């Protein structure tokens, strides 16, 4: 039986520095994960479009396995599983960034691949007909046009990852969600810190999606300049 207690947000203010600390950690974690994700994603996307079957297979396997298994299991595998193989403990921050980045890479690679494929085939043919090789064509013709499709989707991925990153609280990394648990354990109250934390997540994601809306409008405008 749980005893009912009235909501009392006055317990929150003294934890504000701690919560902001959590926000900082969440943002930092997400930024680093997206950074790794973009690099891995670019490599995986290029591999998947390669003419070598083996590279295509490796990329597909990576993408399918990551997308087909829960992020939390992936995190456990890195944090609890890997030490068993390599013989030393991985700090929770590093395990978190690795798991999130590795996970994000699979999604980013599909974003990048879709962006590149969306550029009209005629663009490549025109570049080839002018004597450009495939590297030049990628660099000067395809990528600049693909970026327009890729950037908004990447911001979206960033927003998703901000929310997904809350899962690393289970291994004790003191990001935003973990801070809520910590406040609960001190105050014996769950609702107030969770609501405040949810609100902080919402501010982060809402600001970003508004920013992305404006950004997309600007990108679209340049189509008709």
């Amino acid at each position, binding site marked *: 039986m749980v005893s009912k207690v009235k909501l009392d947000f006055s317990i929150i203010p003294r934890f504000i520095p701690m919560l902001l600390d959590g926000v900082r950690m969440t943002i930092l974690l997400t930024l680093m994960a997206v950074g790794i994700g973009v690099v891995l994603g670019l490599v995986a996307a290029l591999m998947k479009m390669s003419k070598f079957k083996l590279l295509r297979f490796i990329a597909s396997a990576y993408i399918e396995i990551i997308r087909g298994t829960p992020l939390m299991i992936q995190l456990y595998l890195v944090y609890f599983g890997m030490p068993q193989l390599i013989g030393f403990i991985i700090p929770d921050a590093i395990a978190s960034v690795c798991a999130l980045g590795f996970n994000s890479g699979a999604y980013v690679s599909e974003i990048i691949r879709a962006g590149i494929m969306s550029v009209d085939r005629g663009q490549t043919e*025109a570049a*080839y*007909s002018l004597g*450009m*090789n495939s590297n030049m064509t990628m660099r000067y*013709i395809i990528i600049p*046009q693909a970026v327009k499709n890729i950037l908004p989707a990447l911001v979206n991925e960033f927003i998703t990852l901000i929310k997904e990153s809350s899962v690393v609280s289970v291994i004790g990394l003191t990001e935003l969600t973990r801070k809520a648990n910590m406040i609960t354990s001190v105050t014996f109250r769950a609702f107030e810190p969770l609501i405040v934390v949810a609100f902080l997540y919402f501010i982060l994601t809402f600001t970003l999606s508004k920013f992305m809306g404006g950004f997309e409008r600007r990108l679209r405008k340049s189509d*008709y300049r």
Partner: protein
Amino acid sequence: MITVKNLYKQFGKLEVLKDISCNIEKGEVVVVIGPSGSGKSTLLRCINMLEVPTSGDVIVEGIKINEKGVNINKLRQKMGMVFQHFNLFPHLSVLDNITLAPKKVRKIDDKQAMSEALELLDRVGLLDKKDAYPAQLSGGQKQRIAIARALAMKPDIMLFDEPTSALDPEMVKEVLNVIQDLVKEGMTMMIVTHEMGFAREAADRIMFMDEGRIIEQGIPDAIFSNPQNERTKSFLSKIL
């Protein structure tokens, strides 16, 4: 200058080109006509290897180009191509569309590329559009820019793949005029088109294709006034 020998091209089970052999001499203007689906565009695209032939040879300036190890990029520099749908680079200004390949492929400096581009723009009558973006241009203007872009590589031969088929009727003439100017300058050209009046006027030789084969070829007067083959006759009677 270009020799095609026993060229076959298949897309899956569909045989698009069947045993094509032909020759294009330096300075010659060859216009390819024929019903849609007859393989005209595919033949043109095989000549600069945008389509890889299934079998047979394409020999350009003495080099067999559909062979492993041939630097096709190098050979394509000498063959300008103009597409039905223009394929201008939408993210680049008109000037950058024209100067990109000369700068990156021919490796000439910015100043030289710029002055060559301005000269070409003047030639196609679009000097005032140099800072515009493709989306701001009409179809006819886009195609004239596309021609200037191809010419900027100083090609020995120009390939035109239905250059006026995607244009509104009132813009066809401005593009044909530019091509006509190239004819006068003695450019070697292979043109796929449905503009019969233009074909008759500009061509040194007409090539009629149907169902993946060259059915008949000859000087325009002979083909248009006195076609020998039944299929040529029936095609021309439908469109003239």
